[in-house]
Every structure is written in C-alpha cells, then in structure tokens.
C-alpha cells in the first residue's frame, strides 16, 4: 500500500503515526471537547462516539478503533472536520481508519456497508460508470435480501423511467486498468 509521509515527524504510538501519515490529521491535538460528536448526524447509531475514536487513536488502541461500527457508519458529511476547534480532519481520520482496517483484513462491524462499497466499485471497474440497477441487485444478493426495496422503491422508480435497463459504459478497459494499477502499487 502506498503511504505518504507527513511533513513533520510524529511522536507517539504506531496507530497515531499511521493515521497522521495517511490523513495528515494531527490527532494528538484533540482535547476531547466533543464538538465532533455533538454535530455528527449519525452518532446515535455508532458504538463509539467520534470523540472516542479520536481518543483511541491517541492511545494507540487499534483494536477498539478498527473494530468499531463508527468508522463504517461515518457518512463523510465532514461536519466534524469543519467544526473542530483544533482543525483536525476527523472525517479524514475515519477514512484512514477504514483503509487500515481493510488492509489488516479486519472483519468490519458493518459488513453490509463494506459490501455496498465493493459492489459499487465493482460496477465502476467493469463499466467505468455506476450501473444503479446492478449495484442494488448485487447488494441484495450479497445480503440475501433479494427483494429489499424492490416493491417500495425499485418498482416505482422503474415505472417512472428512472432506472436504466442497459448499462452505460466509458472506454472499455481503461477504468478497469486504473483499478488494477492502484492495487499494484
């Protein structure tokens, strides 16, 4: 995996260093004010509050942070990053933790969220563009809920012509090679 060096050497534990190197966020500056948690629209669904994830990173508690549902439920709305009084990119930390969890092969606490990302990316890889019908079908098969959202949402959308039957594609193969090259670095 390609990592990018931070401008300044970072003291502290290995997790803290890894996260700062990847995200550039100075997690050690967090003084636990809780503003990230207060503004997070999804916090009530998370097991760790965003503030607690920041603390876990400061303390090097990789198990806690990487196994949390929080890193996968973060919707990347970036309210936390925009409001942090210490200008820490909390949402960037969540991205970096997700990448680390995947790299370590950790079973995600929200496996359907990860499955949805995979199915979505698979569509881009194959076609260069997202084929929405294929994504939902792939996800429904993967979660063993083949008819989820079909009657309530899919059918009315289909009847209104919002769903493409034939997938669109960009230049054949080029985007697929981007995926292959990214993994090869």
């Amino acid at each position, binding site marked *: 995996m*390609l990592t990018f060096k931070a401008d300044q050497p970072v003291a502290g534990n290995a997790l803290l260093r890894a996260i700062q190197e990847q995200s550039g966020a100075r997690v050690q500056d967090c003084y636990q004010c809780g503003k990230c948690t207060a503004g997070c629209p999804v916090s009530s669904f998370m097991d760790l509050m965003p503030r607690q994830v920041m603390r876990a990173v400061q303390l090097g508690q990789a198990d806690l942070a990487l196994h949390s549902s929080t890193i996968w439920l973060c919707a990347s709305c*970036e309210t936390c990053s925009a409001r942090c009084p210490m200008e820490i990119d909390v949402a960037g930390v969540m991205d970096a933790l997700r990448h680390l969890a995947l790299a370590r092969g950790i079973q995600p606490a*929200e496996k359907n969220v*990860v499955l949805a990302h*995979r199915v979505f990316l698979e569509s881009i890889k194959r076609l260069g563009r997202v084929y929405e019908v294929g994504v939902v079908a792939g996800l429904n098969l993967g979660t063993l809920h083949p008819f989820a959202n079909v009657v309530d949402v899919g059918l009315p959308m289909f009847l209104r012509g919002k769903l493409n039957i034939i997938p669109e594609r960009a230049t054949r193969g080029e985007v697929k*090679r981007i995926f292959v090259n990214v993994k090869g670095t």
Partner: protein
Amino acid sequence: MYTYSYFPGCSLHGTAKEYDHSLRLVAGKLGVELQELEDWSCCGATAAHSTDELLALALPARNLRLAAMTGRPLLAPCVMCFNRMRVTQHQLENPARRQAVEAILAEAAGRPVGEPATAPSQPPVEVLGLLQAFGNDEMLAAIEAAVTRPLKGLKAVCYYGCLSVRPPEIVHPDSLENPQVMDRLIAKLGAEVLDWPFKTECCGGSLALARIDIVLALGRRLLSMARSVGADCVVTACPMCHSNLDTRQKQINAKFGESFKLPIYYVTELMGLAFGYSASDLWLNKHLTA
C-alpha cells in the same frame, strides 16, 4: 454567454435524469452551452474514498485530465462529483501523490508513463458545481430576466446538504453554516424562501444502500423541520439528498407513522417552472413524491 464542459456523472444519467433534463432546458434558456465531456467515467463517490486513497484520487483525476484538454471550465451539477473533483485537485497539489496518480492514469490509458497528465503550463481546470455556475450576480440577473411565471406563493426551504459546503477550504461556500447562494437564486424565481436550521445537515448519503434505517431516520428529521417552518417544498442541487428525501418519503411515512407529502425539487426544476416550462416538460413525473 458561457460554455462549459459538462460532467453529468452516473446519477444524472440514471436516477436523477430529471436533473440532467431540467438543467439542459434552463441552461439553453439562459444561453449557457453545455458540452458533455466525452468518455467521462465515475468519480468513485463515497465507495472509493472509504476504501482506497489512491483509487479515490485516480478516478476523478481521469476526468480532470479529459476536462483540461477541452480548455473549458467543468460544470459538475452532482455535488458528489463536484466535491470529489475539487478534493482531488487539492490533494494532487502534493507532488508525490500527483506523480503516483499520473503514472496510474498513463499506464491505464496506454500512454508513456513519464508523460505529464497535463502540460505544465496548463492551468488546472476550473471545476464548478451548479450553485457556483448559476449563483453569481451576472447569472442571477439573467435568471431574474428569464422568469415569465414567478413562483408566487411557493414556500421553499433550500437544502444544501454536505458536499456543496464542506470541506470549506476546498469548495469555498459563501458561508459554512448558513449559505445563501441557493436562497438568493430561488428568491429570484419569485418563491418565498424560508429560513431553517437544517440547510447543511446530512441526509445519510450512500448509507441508503446498506443502512436504510439510518437514512430514513435522518430523512424524517429533515422533513419534520421543513414542515415545521411551513415549507411547501424542499430544494436541492444534490442527487443523493433528492433520492433520500423523495424516493424514500413513502418508507419514512410508513416506518414512523408520518404523513409527509413534501415535493423535493432540484434547483433547475424550479428555474424551469419559473421560466414557463410545464411540469411534464421538466419530467417532474419522475419524482416519487408529487
């Protein structure tokens, strides 16, 4: 007046095709020319940046390269595409990242690896969202002049969502917590724009795929607030916000015993109505909540 390279993105060619259609109609009316970027590909959206840093940069960078070759500014009305391209431009200011991404793109396209993605003298392509392209003073004056059927009596709340205001140092909103650009535009159409506190709250975005329960809960909060300030409708420039509030409204009603019947309009749809187009001209029948 303006010519843009146009990046519709996957949504505007799919579930948000009424956004694409209404944009083309109103752009035509305003003399704004849209030339669809040839062979565009997906920006990678949430799925890419959640799983792979390099992929999240390489996918938008391919499109930025295509756009740079046109020499025109790039209009990306989907705020996800707009945001990912702006963030990518910012991230690629780091030379190490830039080099890595350029090598990946060159190899994928079958170009010599050392060849720079853009000529060094070429300025980075200017990436605009819908609100950037249509919200400036000049365009607002043109919009006001094009109104033939003012939306008198319509009470609207403007819903900016996340990606058109954050990260503020990259997308440069007119205000982080209380943006006005859409409010000003909708007011020019003759509608009454109501103030409300959830302009930049999140709808849950792509969690709609895997955690519908969360998206329904967030949607209910948003719709409740819109209703409590007296809105007849919610206006957005974001296909995810639209989908989560319009397409899911029936599910929200069923789950929470609510009776919301709030139409969710794209900015361009209200522009179209004010410019004299009919609901069927604008494909408003594609909405699930009428």
